[in-house]
């Protein structure tokens, strides 16, 4: 029977963040396989920035309002004060990824539909 571990409690106790599931196996070959898997998926770039996600292969120009960029710069600066090195556009990419995962078709339609002004 597989024992359930409380991963949130473990993360809190370690002062760590949960990053994802891996297939950990014992023995030398298990150790080497796990290492290769982790280096490919969670590798931290030199300079200590946020781990590069190899699935982020596409690059696009993203037009932003100055106030949005300013907000991203402020938030990423505050995050960096806590020791996590993140750039404003990395933060933007993360926000897009997380929001896109949760966004329903209806919510997308509501976002892009022109807002009607109230008329008397």
């Amino acid at each position, binding site marked *: 029977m597989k*024992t359930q*571990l*409380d*991963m949130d*409690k*473990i*993360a809190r*106790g*370690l*002062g*760590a*963040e*949960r*990053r*994802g*599931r*891996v*297939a*950990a*196996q*014992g023995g*030398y070959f298990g*150790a*080497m396989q*796990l*290492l*290769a898997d*982790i*280096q490919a*998926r*969670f*590798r*931290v*770039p*030199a*300079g*200590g*920035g946020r*781990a*590069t996600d190899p699935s982020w292969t596409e690059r696009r120009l993203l037009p932003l309002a100055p106030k949005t960029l300013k907000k991203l710069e402020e938030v990423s600066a505050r995050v960096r004060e*806590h*020791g*996590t*090195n993140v750039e404003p556009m990395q933060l933007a990419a993360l926000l897009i990824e997380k929001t896109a995962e949760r966004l329903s078709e209806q919510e997308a339609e509501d976002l892009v539909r022109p807002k009607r002004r109230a008329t008397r």
Partner: protein
Amino acid sequence: MAKAIRKKAGRGQNVLSGGRKRVLVVLFVPSVERDGTTSIDQQRWVDASLEMFGRVFGGATAYPKAKGVWRDDERGGALVIDEPVVVHCYTTPADIQDDGNLAALGAFCRRMGRETRQGEIGLVVGDEYFAIREFGEE
């Protein structure tokens, strides 16, 4: 050659139930600082991690270092060579979820991250990867 320390089980182990060591904890001991080029005293940290795992969880095994290479596209495609050592420790569900043991393991990882100037210390518990990125002193 794999190096192992076997010591008496740490606190929190229940001899009659939950005592079987079936949770794998894996720690990655880096070979270089976060700049990817400055070497660290890796052997010292391998020995220190074995000592910590032996004291807290009852034992651990350090495997021979692996050699890896990756291309750092943020630094003009420079190739970074790393030779991490993988340390395996089998423990019990009770011991890995014990507050005192978690605090000891977390404190060790933060000290290693701080003193070897890492961007991140990686740890696997069971089937999940954990990242420790804040290395503030206790």
